[in-house]
């Protein structure tokens, strides 16, 4: 790590984008209208699983104002199937943007219409006649994997989209010799991110220019361009994807799924076509997530040391986790990271990913790290309880120690840095753990409100470099000096609310001795930026920050060469500070003077010596120094570069009469290495944690056994409100990563990873007098009461008529 002057990195700079966003001057896809634009609407399947017997669109086609009515047969005839986003030994179904012979989930688009207005397009849907033959549906993960289950893709012979496993160490022997063996079954339900802005796409095929322009709400414009080109077998360089301001991503917007439908309609009509998803459409078919069952077996010695872990995860990706979106991969990540921040002697894991008649599955803030965290952290607290240890002490005995980094986990990844014990110690202090436990003891049984505290630690593998997948292994970006001395950063990394439009300016300002106002980040236009990949896997602070910091360093070195030549001095003695290149104690040239000299007065010939590399701009390629796709002797690979960590606590009060859980306090200690912007980091921690609380307490896609989704609006699919969440306390431990340029690590997902486990631990701690064990989420009041009813103590105390 080279040290640079750190003036802006570490500063809580107000976000550059907030002026436009909070004053209502942001520009989102739906704000864009172009002349001649048509509007799209989609007819969606009312059935979860059905054969399409016939589709008659003749009446709709005849309506005045309707310009195109397309079916799956059209999609099949003229365009290709949805291009896969991931295929690491997976079964990839051949599916189209519009259903062809079968529908696989309720809400699947069957027919698309482009009309003069959205009203007309929606109304015209009524003139379409579809005949279905309803087939038996399967929605439950284990039912989908059971013999005799209805098959989504009969040619597969089963409903398994992928399966994988590994074994390291003497697993059976470890369990045979163990002092204690604990077993757990821990499922988690289906829920997902809820962006304020759903999906939106405005496609314009210009036949005279042979060019397809797609404005859409996406996290990864370059990837969407590739996927759209592949789906339409259209030259990729003739596709331009523009992502304006994005109203939230959370991993949900990392594919070209329904976005290709407006493209299809525009190719058919030659006119621009806009589709803005309704909330109902978003809940029906926007990418869903979670939905799995874990079986865990843990061997522990009598002194509370973890010995062996034998785990199996069964995932449910709905109708698909490869083409519609990349949901299947998260269960592989989960399997690789279930060992967590702890040390093990023996490890075995198996994962099986099932397809079912639910909406497709994508990424949502965690992509498997959350799946790895939940069962382990619940198990850790339950085992501590069984062993008579405090949950903190049991974790401390088993953490990877701060002096053991880089530490190779038994499943293969190399953990770069951290101090897990310190995170936990700081947390206990922040939340005043002992005081809470005293208060709990003093108040328990005095009223129907039971106080409880739960903790969870986490590991947030960041910057995944996944082979055979759109979530690949490099970042490329350009840093450009303008003639007037300002700097442009050109990046494929989309600002989706995480604030990279601001933080990247802080990074470049420090490298080049500028202020953040001297730098502008250009993103969201595939024709303006290099083929960088985008924000997912919390990779911004791992890949993109490193890439751009190094690009700025290389540009600075080139500029130093130019100036050293002008001044006939040593480049090594120069520094960049206060908007200028400076010879300490001597001459000074502002970047504006230098930019002018390079471009205009007199121009490059007069100032740039032949041996100097490009002083105008540097496009830099950055890849992980530690990730590796070459299996080691045990067949293990390393996909993640940094491993941020942390611990958090939730304090709840559970009303044993009503089942209501009140969240009284939340505290988070996070270690994301060097912090670029503390306010942004804390904002991410707060927002992410609230999403996790939502998943733990209320958010759930409620499918019935026929595959019908019951809650398709926000009055029945609930999210936490401001009143549901207390002030969140944050603190930090800073263990810089040796594998990134500035020592930064990811931090976008960590706080969403922890809350479900912390919540379960808190509720079980609160209800300890009743011996309750949570077997399902979300913990709605009804579910809490159902759990309490299993307790004879509770029945005696609270059941009417008992």
């Amino acid at each position, binding site marked *: 790590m080279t040290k640079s002057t750190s003036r802006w990195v570490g500063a809580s700079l107000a976000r550059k984008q907030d002026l436009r966003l909070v004053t209502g001057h942001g520009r989102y896809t739906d704000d864009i209208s172009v002349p001649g634009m048509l509007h799209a609407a989609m*007819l*969606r*399947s*009312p*059935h979860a699983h059905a054969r399409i017997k016939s589709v008659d669109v003749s009446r709709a086609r005849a309506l005045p104002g309707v310009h195109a009515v397309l079916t799956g047969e059209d999609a099949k005839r003229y365009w290709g199937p949805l291009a896969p986003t991931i295929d690491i030994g997976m079964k990839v179904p051949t599916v189209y943007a519009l259903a062809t012979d079968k529908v696989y989930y*309720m*809400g699947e688009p069957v027919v698309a219409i482009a009309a003069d207005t959205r009203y007309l397009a929606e109304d015209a*849907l*009524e003139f379409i*006649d579809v005949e279905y033959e309803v087939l038996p549906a399967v929605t439950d993960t284990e039912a989908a994997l059971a013999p005799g289950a209805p098959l989504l893709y009969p040619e597969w012979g089963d409903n398994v989209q992928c399966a994988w496993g590994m074994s390291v160490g003497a697993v059976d022997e470890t369990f045979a010799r163990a002092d204690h063996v604990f077993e757990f079954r821990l499922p988690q339900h289906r829920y997902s991110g809820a962006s304020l802005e759903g999906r939106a796409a405005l496609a314009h095929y210009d036949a005279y220019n042979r060019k397809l322009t797609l404005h859409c709400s996406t996290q990864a414009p370059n990837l969407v361009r590739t996927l759209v080109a592949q789906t339409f077998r259209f030259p990729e360089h003739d596709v331009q994807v523009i992502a304006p301001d994005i109203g939230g991503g959370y991993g949900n917007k990392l594919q070209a799924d329904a976005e290709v439908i407006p493209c299809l309609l525009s190719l058919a009509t030659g006119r621009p076509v806009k589709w803005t998803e309704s909330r*109902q459409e978003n809940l*029906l078919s926007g990418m869903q997530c979670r939905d799995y069952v874990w079986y865990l077996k843990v061997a522990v010695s009598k002194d509370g040391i973890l010995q062996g872990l034998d785990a199996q995860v069964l995932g449910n990706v709905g109708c698909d986790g490869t083409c519609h979106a990349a949901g299947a991969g998260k269960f592989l990540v989960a399997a690789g990271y279930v060992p967590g921040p702890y040390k093990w002697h023996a490890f075995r894991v198996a994962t099986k990913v099932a397809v079912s008649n639910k909406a497709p599955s994508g990424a949502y803030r965690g992509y498997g790290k959350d799946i790895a965290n939940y069962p382990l952290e619940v198990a850790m607290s339950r085992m501590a309880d069984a062993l008579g240890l405090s949950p903190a002490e049991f974790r401390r005995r088993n953490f990877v120690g701060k002096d053991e980094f880089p530490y190779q986990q038994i499943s293969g990844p190399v953990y770069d840095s951290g101090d897990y014990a310190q995170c936990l110690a700081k947390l206990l202090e922040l939340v005043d753990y002992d005081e809470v436990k005293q208060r709990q003891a003093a108040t328990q049984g005095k009223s129907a409100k039971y106080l409880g505290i739960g903790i969870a630690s986490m590991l947030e593998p960041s910057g995944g470099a996944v082979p055979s997948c759109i979530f690949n292994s490099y970042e490329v970006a350009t840093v450009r000096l303008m003639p007037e001395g300002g700097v442009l950063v050109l990046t494929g990394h989309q600002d989706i609310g995480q604030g990279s439009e601001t933080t990247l300016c802080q990074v470049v300002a420090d490298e080049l001795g500028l202020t953040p106002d001297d730098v502008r980040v250009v993103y969201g236009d595939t024709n303006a930026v290099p083929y960088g990949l985008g924000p997912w896997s919390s990779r911004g602070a791992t890949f993109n920050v490193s890439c751009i910091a190094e690009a700025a360093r290389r540009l600075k070195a080139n500029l130093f060469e130019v100036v050293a030549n002008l001044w006939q001095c040593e480049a090594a003695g120069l520094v960049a500070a206060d908007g200028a290149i400076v010879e300490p104690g001597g001459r000074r040239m502002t970047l504006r003077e230098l930019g002018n000299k390079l471009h205009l007065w007199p121009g490059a010939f007069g100032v740039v010596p032949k041996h100097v590399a490009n002083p105008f701009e540097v496009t830099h390629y950055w890849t992980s120094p530690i990730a590796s796709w070459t299996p080691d002797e045990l067949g293990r690979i390393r996909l993640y570069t940094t491993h941020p960590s942390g611990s958090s606590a939730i304090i709840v009060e559970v009303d044993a009469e009503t089942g209501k859980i009140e969240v009284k306090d939340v505290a988070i200690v996070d270690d994301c290495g060097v912090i670029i912007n503390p306010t942004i980091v804390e904002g991410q921690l707060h927002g992410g944690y609230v999403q996790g609380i939502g998943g733990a307490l209320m958010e759930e896609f409620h499918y*019935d056994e*026929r595959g*019908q*989704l*019951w*809650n*398709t*609006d926000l009055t*029945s699919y609930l999210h936490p409100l401001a009143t549901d969440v207390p002030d969140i306390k944050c603190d930090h431990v800073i263990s810089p990563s040796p594998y990134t340029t500035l020592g930064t690590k990811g931090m976008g997902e960590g706080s969403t990873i922890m809350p479900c486990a912390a919540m379960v631990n808190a509720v079980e701690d609160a209800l300890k007098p009743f011996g309750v064990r949570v077997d399902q989420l979300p913990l709605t009041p009804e579910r809490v009461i159902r759990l309490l009813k299993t307790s004879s103590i509770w029945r005696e105390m609270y059941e009417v008529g008992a």
Partner: protein
Amino acid sequence: MKFEGESEVSGTPPVVWDALIDPKVIERCTPGCQSLAVVGPDDFELVTKIGIASISGTYKGRMRIAEKLVGERYVMSAEGAGPIGTMSVVGIVTLQDNGDATRVAYSFEATVGGAMTGLAQRALLPIAKLLTKQFFKRVEKVIAGEDLPAEEVGS
């Protein structure tokens, strides 16, 4: 979703019975009915237009009357599909003498599919009740030989 209730219709059970199973009466009295085709004995195809808020649209369906116990009870089943989803209803209609009037009680089990599912519990029940009430009112008018109102809520 269970959906039940009763209505009092002027007329003796034999008169009300004849009206209730008469396709012409069904066609005239079903709120928003655009057409009814008899495809077999007690087997009809209907097109109905509903104009209520979020479930507005044209619904096509099939209706059957079965297990008739003349003047007393029958099983009605119907299934339909419209822009926001599918619905199937099956249930028993019973007639009871009540002086000059007949008490018609119905008990249906409705299954909804598609985007309708989410609306089902909250919005659909009151709408179904409203439409059913309208239906019986109109039957009563037909029996009395009165003119039917041209437009009503929901049609």
